[in-house]
């Protein structure tokens, strides 16, 4: 019975995959939310909700992966394909610094012409010009691709990128960490073990990482559960995930199209994430895909962080999802839910409190 499972979970007992699946498919969302809320309060007793001031710089939209859920990628040579010039990238980062931002998230397509030297030069120059900015860039799929383009093994590529001032690795491209689902939605992207290998190596090198999950496309409930447990097990075995970030597939302008997860389904998956992943400190609400109202509600379903203010975001926007958020709104949203608000760094150190 879901109620028995929840009662045991509330006492801090670990959940099996079968039990988690039962909660996901049968339990009442409010009941799951209450247990998740209890875990959130235990891990964050200071009643604080955090966010980072950041900018996503999508250096290129040229991508060989061509994932079927993506509305952002272009083929090389297409009229709206682009690769940002270095000076444009620096100008964007300068704007971020002026706005009080601390985190740069560079993410792009898997560009066939960009070898590791391009990134090394760029990253060194970024650190020299903007030493206060945390370079939190490149998902595992990109790192794997860069290694291949340059004929390097992944550990060597990652070591060189770190050497060139890559500070931490965001967990994008995880989608659903089950290969049968990946085969359907992103057949050309690295498999789940490839994703895990990069994250293991990053942790070994002392870099902090995050993990995401994109749901609401073709996966089954059991795939969501498998994803959560794989992330949990990675973390248990030396992982360096600072946060888990579930978000929903945005079908606009994509090859996959169709429907996505509803609000109640989002809250339930979020709450289950908080319960299963009690070995990861932070769970982020996705205002980018859920909107400000739902992100606020998510703070009672396990989330303790609202991610970034994102001065710039292009990937989800390409799928027709264009929520915007100012610093004032972010703080108002947190206070309106009865929490203290704090701007944080990538590594969850407080910059400023409200």
């Amino acid at each position, binding site marked *: 019975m879901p109620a028995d499972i929840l009662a045991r979970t509330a006492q801090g007992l670990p959940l099996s995959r079968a039990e988690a699946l039962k909660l996901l498919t049968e339990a009442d969302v409010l009941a799951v939310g209450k247990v998740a809320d209890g875990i959130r309060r235990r891990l964050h007793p200071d009643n604080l909700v955090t966010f980072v001031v950041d900018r996503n710089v999508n250096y290129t939209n040229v991508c060989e992966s061509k994932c079927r859920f993506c509305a952002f990628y272009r083929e090389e040579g297409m009229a709206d394909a682009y690769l940002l010039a270095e000076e444009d990238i620096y100008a964007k980062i300068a704007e971020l610094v002026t706005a009080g931002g601390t985190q740069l998230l560079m993410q792009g397509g898997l560009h066939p012409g960009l070898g590791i030297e391009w990134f090394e030069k760029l990253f060194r120059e970024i650190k020299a010009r903007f030493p206060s900015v945390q370079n939190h860039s490149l998902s595992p799929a990109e790192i794997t691709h860069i290694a291949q383009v340059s004929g390097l093994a992944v550990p060597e590529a990652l070591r060189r990128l770190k050497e060139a001032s890559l500070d931490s690795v965001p967990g994008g491209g995880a989608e659903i960490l089950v290969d049968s689902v990946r085969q359907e939605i992103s057949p050309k992207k690295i498999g789940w073990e490839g994703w895990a290998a990069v994250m293991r190596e990053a942790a070994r090198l002392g870099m902090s990482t995050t993990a995401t999950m994109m749901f609401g496309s073709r996966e089954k409930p059991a795939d969501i559960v498998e994803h959560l447990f794989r992330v949990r097990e990675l973390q248990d075995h030396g992982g360096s995930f600072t946060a888990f970030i579930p978000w929903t597939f945005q079908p606009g302008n994509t090859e996959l199209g169709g429907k996505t997860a509803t609000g109640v389904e989002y809250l339930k998956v979020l709450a289950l994430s908080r319960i299963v992943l009690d070995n990861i400190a932070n769970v982020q609400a996705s205002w980018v895909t859920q909107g400000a109202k*739902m992100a606020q*509600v998510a703070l009672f379903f396990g989330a303790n962080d609202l991610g970034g203010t994102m001065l710039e975001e292009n990937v989800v926007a390409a799928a027709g999802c264009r929520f915007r958020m100012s610093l004032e709104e972010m703080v*108002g949203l947190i206070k309106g839910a009865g929490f203290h608000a704090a701007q944080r760094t990538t590594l969850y150190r407080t910059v400023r409190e409200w």
Partner: protein
Amino acid sequence: MSSLDAIAEKVRAGERISDDDALALYRSRDLLAVGELAALVNERRNGRRVFFNVNRHINHTNICVNRCRFCAFSRTADEPGAYCYDLDEIRNRAAEALAQGATEIHMVGGLHPDLPFEFYLDMLRTVRSVSPWLHIKAFTAVEIDYLARLTGLSVAETLAELKEAGLGSLPGGGAEILRREVRDQLCPEKISGERWLEVMAEVHGAGLKSNATMLYGHIESYEDRVDHMRRLRELQDATRGFQVFIPLAFQAENNPLGHLKNPLSGGVDDLKTLAVARIYLDNFANIKAYWVMLGEKIAQTALCFGVNDLDGTVVEEKIGHDAGASSPQAMGRDDIVALIRTAGRIPVERDTLYNELRVY
């Protein structure tokens, strides 16, 4: 000061909660505990069934003598964008709605300075002539008061004529916040809260059902909201004429009061307001989450916070959208059914008077 536990005990025992209790629920930081209580009250009354209906809005004119400061819909007659449908346009929209399976026409509009009373009767007759099965839910208490003054008849006589011409029930708009101090700032030209309640008492006395709304998330306080609900609960005790309570989230765009949107009123306040209403208004059968104002995601989530009605598959809503509501202008029957189902509830299509038409 009421503690959450003491209130929960009352609610479980089926007792009515006090104004102080309602305030304590509003001030509680434990959203899920408040939601759980509301869900309990709702489950007792309505089980896991959630109502929706298939309707069409016809906003026949946006020309209005009132200048409510929160409204982005109204125009003066000579302003760009001002419009007024003729009877053919109304007939066509009603016929279209009927063809799409609608069972209700929801008709409200501005207080037009020049239309004669006869035109309103003709509007009703026109819709009725399209089909006697289309229920006409039309005219807020504000419009009824205006029509009575226009004709020089009493409210009771005005209602009798409208009913004769086809009026089936009344929506709950124009209530805003009933307390005078808030109305003076928000909508000084509009009828008072006392008058709104008087008209509703007459409506119920005429054998017509109505809805009741509350516009929140602007300059009002929690005390104002509880005062508003107390007056509704008292009138409902006397008349039993309200079918449903519908809190309306203030939309901040395109209106002069936009800057007075309460920045602390977001999704959490939306859910809490619905939940507190479900607990406090123990003599209301139904609480509605109006997805046009709330968005689909919050409206769906509200089904776990005491709500048992998701409104209709509204077609061509103009008033909320002129104020920047970002929801789609219409939601199909299949979409609503799926939304209710994925929240773990049973979708039930109803007519305007809350008779069940079909269980999905």
